[in-house]
């Protein structure tokens, strides 16, 4: 694969896309890929005339939507690095949204965060109890938690919100009583708003870059920045401290860790509870976006977070990239249905590159398949003006599926992930 990346002058996306997806690439290769991606995006934007593709409003929406997914994925990272598969992320996220709504309408946004984290952690504790103490299959327990969380949230809403003078009802809470503070980067994104000026010019590449930067720096909530910082913080915690090494050793070889004196079961408990807390925090951000708790607010984002985790090869940087991608797809379908059609052109370009690459590797079947799909996507782009809402609604999920099916062969999960560990049985 290194042969395909050597010349930096060639269009980088032609190199192994899987490298980016597995997160194992060096920083320079990553930079090239980012740049290549930007060039393709700008080109698609100019060709299709869909300003929404790289506009600052789409980007800030993408950031907002990526944060909950990223937090869920981060939760999954802790749990799975400690060897506990966590399908229950979505359930814990649901608990987090409810907790945030309940605390938020009474005591404001600070309490909402605490409430959501606590409720999520409670879900994590339940998962830990089932999988670590009772040795229940991890997927089974996770599925049960998802079902249970839905019921619990409904039940609690019926109990607390139906006759509440503050508002709310069976499916939603009263509105959160205060919004978290937000700020914009001075000069660049507010006041003179230099980036905004650049963005409005519509220049190839430069305006796109300005739009992306402006979207990420204007009107950003402080808590969002904290949430984004949690990703490097998790990296430092898991890969640069003794605690992290111990935690990861439980996911790779618990018996060996045990023999070295690592309290495996306790580590797993801690990891799964952190996992629940982080997914709960993801739920809190969903509540912040809407300003209210609503039933079914997660809309499967916990699962998308799980997919982002797998997509990111169980590493913080990778999962952040995955969350960004899914957040973007989500933002795009919410912002503009016509812009989703422009994505088809993007898919066509990318798949054409895949087809070319597979052709070079003399894998005729894959090449033909990719080329055929690329052609279909191109035809779709040229003939479809606007997709119906039903179809557009699953853009992020389809993106997830496509990316996973293009990427998932080079992934390596923690070695003992999903195994039930009990002392003395190995």
């Amino acid at each position, binding site marked *: 694969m290194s042969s395909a990346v050597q010349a930096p002058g060639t269009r980088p996306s032609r190199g192994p896309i899987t490298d980016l997806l597995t997160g194992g690439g060096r920083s320079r290769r990553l930079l090239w890929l980012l740049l290549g991606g930007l060039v393709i995006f700008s080109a698609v934007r100019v060709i299709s005339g869909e300003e929404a593709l790289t506009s600052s409003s789409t980007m800030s929406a993408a950031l907002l939507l990526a944060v909950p997914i990223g937090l869920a994925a981060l939760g999954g990272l802790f749990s799975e690095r400690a060897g506990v598969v966590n399908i229950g992320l979505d359930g814990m996220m649901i608990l987090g949204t409810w907790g945030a709504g309940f605390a938020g309408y009474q005591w404001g946004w600070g309490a909402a965060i605490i409430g959501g984290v606590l409720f999520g952690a409670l879900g994590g504790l339940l998962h830990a109890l089932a999988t670590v103490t009772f040795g229940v299959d991890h997927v089974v327990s996770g*599925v049960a938690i998802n079902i*249970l969380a839905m019921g619990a949230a*409904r039940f609690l809403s019926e109990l607390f919100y139906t006759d509440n003078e503050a508002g709310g009802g069976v499916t939603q809470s009263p509105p959160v009583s205060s919004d978290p503070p937000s700020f914009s980067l001075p000069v660049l994104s507010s006041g003179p708003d230099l980036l905004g000026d650049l963005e409005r010019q519509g220049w190839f590449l430069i305006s796109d870059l300005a739009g992306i930067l402006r979207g990420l720096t204007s009107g950003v909530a402080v808590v969002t920045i904290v949430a984004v910082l949690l990703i490097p913080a998790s990296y430092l915690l898991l890969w640069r401290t003794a605690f992290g090494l111990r935690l990861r050793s439980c996911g790779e070889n618990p018996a060996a860790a045990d023999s070295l004196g690592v309290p495996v079961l306790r580590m797993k408990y801690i990891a799964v509870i952190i996992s629940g807390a982080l997914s709960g925090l993801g739920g809190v951000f969903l509540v912040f976006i809407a300003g209210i708790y609503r039933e079914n607010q997660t809309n499967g984002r916990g699962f998308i977070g799980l997919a982002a985790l797998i997509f990111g090869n169980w590493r913080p940087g990778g999962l952040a990239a995955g969350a960004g991608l899914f957040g973007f797809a989500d933002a795009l379908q919410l912002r503009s249905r016509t812009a989703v059609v422009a994505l088809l052109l993007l898919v066509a370009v990318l798949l054409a590159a895949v087809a070319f690459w597979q052709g070079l590797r003399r894998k005729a079947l894959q090449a033909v398949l990719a080329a055929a799909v690329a052609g279909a996507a191109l035809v779709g782009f040229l003939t479809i003006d606007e997709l119906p809402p039903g*179809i557009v609604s699953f853009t992020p999920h389809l993106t997830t599926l496509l990316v996973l099916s293009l990427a998932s062969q080079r*992934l390596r999960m923690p070695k003992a992930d999903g*195994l039930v560990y009990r002392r003395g049985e190995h």
Partner: protein
Amino acid sequence: VNLLRRLGPALLPPVLAVVVALVISSAVMAALGVNPFDVFAVMLDFGDTPAQQTTAMVVIVNRAIPLFLAGLAVAVAFRMGLFNIGVEGQYRLATIVAAGVGAAVALPGPLHILLIVIVAVVVAALWAGIVAVLKVTRGVSEVISSIMLNFIALGIASFLLTGPLRGSPEGASIISTREIPESGQMPGINALFDVLGLANPPRQLYGFLVVAIVVGIAIAVLLNRTRFGFDLKASGMSPSAASASGVNARAMVIKTMLLSGAVAGLIGLPDLLGNTHSYTTDFTAGLGFLGIAVALLGRNRPLGIAFAALLFGFLDRSLVPLQIQDYPSSVVTIVQGTIVLAVVVANEIARRVARRSAERGTAAPVGGIVPGDGGTGVGQSVDPEEPNPPAGTGVGVSRTAGAGQTDTDGRGGRA
């Protein structure tokens, strides 16, 4: 007594789990200021007149039929260690396409119904097939892909409903497909009540009950009496042992998912053919997820799933009476959720107890094992003719060798 001793271990964990779940959910209700006994009283109150009581029974059975099929669909995949979480999307997509096709054609009675059934089965099987193909060719976890396909299926279904297959006029509050003509509707089988000498309720018992029973028996035979079923279970218990004995693992994944999907295609049909005759925006949802719970509770055996489905049907029936009496109806979901968690924990405990007593070499009946059941299975062959599904993970494979995901008791035959 012998029968009791054999069945006891299999029955004990689920029964215990239900009891524990009831206690836990009562505690939750009591903690939140709802009297659990009043709630249970409402659940058990079937009405006063014989007709009311049989109506309640019909409601329960009508609800249990799709639940049973959903549980069966999940269990088929479960048996081989595959989590088909995509049942939800499979049956919703299958039902709307079948409803559309059924409304578009006119055929003589039985043929019309047959066509609808076949369309539903094929659509759901193909949809499940995508999961299998992605798994064997691209290594995508079936859990993730089937969840994503759920969203995609629901999106496509809503597109079909509001677009090409729309049959209701613009502005109607409930959007629906066009109604399936008389020849494609399945009559109820209320004659059964006259035969049994019970009061004939006003509500129709779904004729699809017969189909569900036939499918249940067919699946039971397929799993327990055929080479395919044996390969399937062997692959679930120990993929390495199965492939060593010549089972093509990839082909098994595809076949199993197709079968699971085919059964999933039937889930929406009892309601479609027997009651609504069209797919609407408020068509029964969530059966796929409940199916997972039902399969776990029924321990992946058709008979167990039937009982689990009846239990869930019973719980679901009380939704409306609870609402009428102003109780939070979501207690039903709570009870169901705790039952599932309790049952998986109970299974695990029973399995561990069984293993321990097997290690001690005393096949204590309390331990929840069949005599001769070696938990650690030294060279114990897996015998498809054995009425109790084979225990042990095959030939001297240790408990954890099956890479965890193959290690639930949820699907296995132990304990």
